[in-house]
């Protein structure tokens, strides 16, 4: 457990309990210094936008939050657990959806989800109930028994979401989740994020689609070349500018 990091975060809706706290995070991959001391806090029951151009360090940050990569310096706290000292505890509390929809092609949609439910330590007696609940929530019944290799991109993305949420994690991270999807499938993802927020989840949304961020996020942090260049509500970051995109272009150009 970590102790010195903020326990609360102030939003336009008042104070929220911190779910993910990133503190002076540094990371070098190869010869490239990807993160140069970034800090931010995402609260429970909010959609937190992690914005930045390609290569800004968004994916690396998310990979470090879910313990796939270790920080060179700095710390990450997820619901009171340090990612370096209690990686398994953190993984139990995090679900991640990425743009690259990797599913096991020779397993059916439902088999894919059951596999991850078991690996995520959902009690055996509850697996079926949880999987059915997720299938229902994401409206997947029509293709649940089909092999994943025969599913459309949107259906595969639903499988990817289902496996990320089947263990009901309090922290959900979406890394460019709509970049390979059509308009309808993208809308479903956005609706799902809003619904998750309403359920009290901490939703971290990494994107470079600023229109989505402006509509969905309670607060945003803009990263550029591994550093935080702006933080606050979309309105605060926008300031005098016309919209978030305009403000973003000013910050990163």
């Amino acid at each position, binding site marked *: 457990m970590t102790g010195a990091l903020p326990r609360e975060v102030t939003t336009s809706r008042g104070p929220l309990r911190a779910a993910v706290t990133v503190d002076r995070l540094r990371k070098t*991959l*190869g010869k490239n210094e990807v993160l140069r001391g970034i800090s931010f806090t995402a609260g429970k029951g909010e959609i937190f936008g992690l914005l930045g151009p390609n290569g800004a360090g968004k994916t690396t940050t998310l*990979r470090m939050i*879910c*313990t*796939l*990569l*270790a920080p060179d310096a700095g710390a990450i706290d997820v619901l009171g657990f340090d990612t370096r000292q209690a990686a*398994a*505890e953190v*993984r*139990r509390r*995090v679900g*991640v959806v*990425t743009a*690259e*929809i*990797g*599913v*096991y*092609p*020779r*397993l059916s949609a439902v*088999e894919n989800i059951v*596999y*991850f439910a*078991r*690996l*995520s*330590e959902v009690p*055996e007696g509850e697996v079926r109930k949880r999987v059915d609940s997720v299938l229902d929530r994401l409206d997947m019944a029509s293709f649940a028994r089909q092999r994943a290799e025969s599913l459309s991109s949107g259906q595969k993305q639903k499988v*990817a979401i289902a*496996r*990320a949420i089947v263990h009901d994690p309090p922290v959900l991270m979406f890394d460019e989740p709509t970049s390979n999807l059509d308009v309808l499938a993208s809308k479903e993802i956005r609706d799902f994020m809003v619904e998750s927020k309403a359920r009290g989840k901490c939703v971290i949304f990494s994107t470079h689609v600023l229109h989505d961020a402006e509509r969905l996020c309670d607060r945003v942090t803009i990263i550029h070349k591994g550093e935080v260049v702006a933080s606050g509500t979309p309105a605060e970051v926008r300031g005098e500018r016309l919209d978030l995109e305009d403000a973003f272009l000013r910050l990163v150009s």
Partner: protein
Amino acid sequence: MTATWIVYRKEIVEILRDRRTLIAIGLSALATPIVLSIISQVSTRTAAQTYTVGYTGDVPAGLDILLSGVQLKLEPVADPAAAARQQVDLGVAFLPDEIDEYYDPARQSAEIADTRLQTVLGQYNAAKAAAALQAKGVDPGILTPLRVVPHPLSSPVQAAGNAFLSFFLPYILITMILTGGFSAALDSTAGERERRTLESLLMTPAPRSRVLLGKILAVTSISLVAALAAITSMFIALSQVSLGSGPNAVHISLNPVAVPVMVWVALLLAITFSSVTLALGTLARSFRQGQAYVTPLYFITIFPASIILFIPDFNPSLAYYLIPVLNAVLVLRDAILHNTIAWPTLIVTSVSLAALGGFSWLAALRLFTREGLLTRS
């Protein structure tokens, strides 16, 4: 349910639905009897085939009958040396006091014809000498002062069968254990990476060592199934072939001592090969790259089996049993040929293979837990 078992079950389901693996196992089970059948037919044809001997001069009386008895056909030619290059299998010039023989050692037919001719000429010369001695009232027995009476300790036909098995069985076992698990090992490592499922898998709370163990056990299982399929089909095919003739005819079969040795060696090899191929697969970024990494393994591992073919009486010291794969071949050969378990060699072999398996497991685990697995694109 432990993570190892969860991963194992999922991998097995995926493997059983993978056409590539199933076709590989099916083909190997079919290929073995086909190869055996071809070998059997070629051997039979070679033994029964008539070879041509081109000759000049006068054929010694009675020699033509002896030659036709061993399927050597005489054919007059103008120049036996020239004819022996292509026209006939062997060239012979019958001179008054000697026979000049011409043959091309590069041609297998010439080698076989030469062996037959030498045998016949030996018998012919012995018979002539015996007749000459007898005509002078001398006992022909003086030509063989030490008569050899052979007393084989086991059936020569059975021994020939065991010699065949001692090469072929290790060869099949090693080949099938290695190749049977190739596709599955690459699919569950490089394939995961290529399909972008690896990241999701590593984000679960399941310890990576248990995930890897589940994968190794799945690949081991499929390797053993492939080996079992090939060996079963081999014995079914061998049951249709008999060695020798008449009352001495026997079918090739594995002696009871060799069976547990084979099972034990197969298990050790399967675990070791699975760890090695998974480690190499983890290094690869794609299935195709994985194939490039793993293919040389085939040649490295099949080489020891070939030693037994080319050096049939290879009688190594205990130190040789430290060499992985070669030791498996030797232990299996010893059990098949001698119908006994040599415990010192079996123990050294087991320790050697277990050490290689353990080392490969650690290497695979190290590769599987490093950050580069995800960041190297």
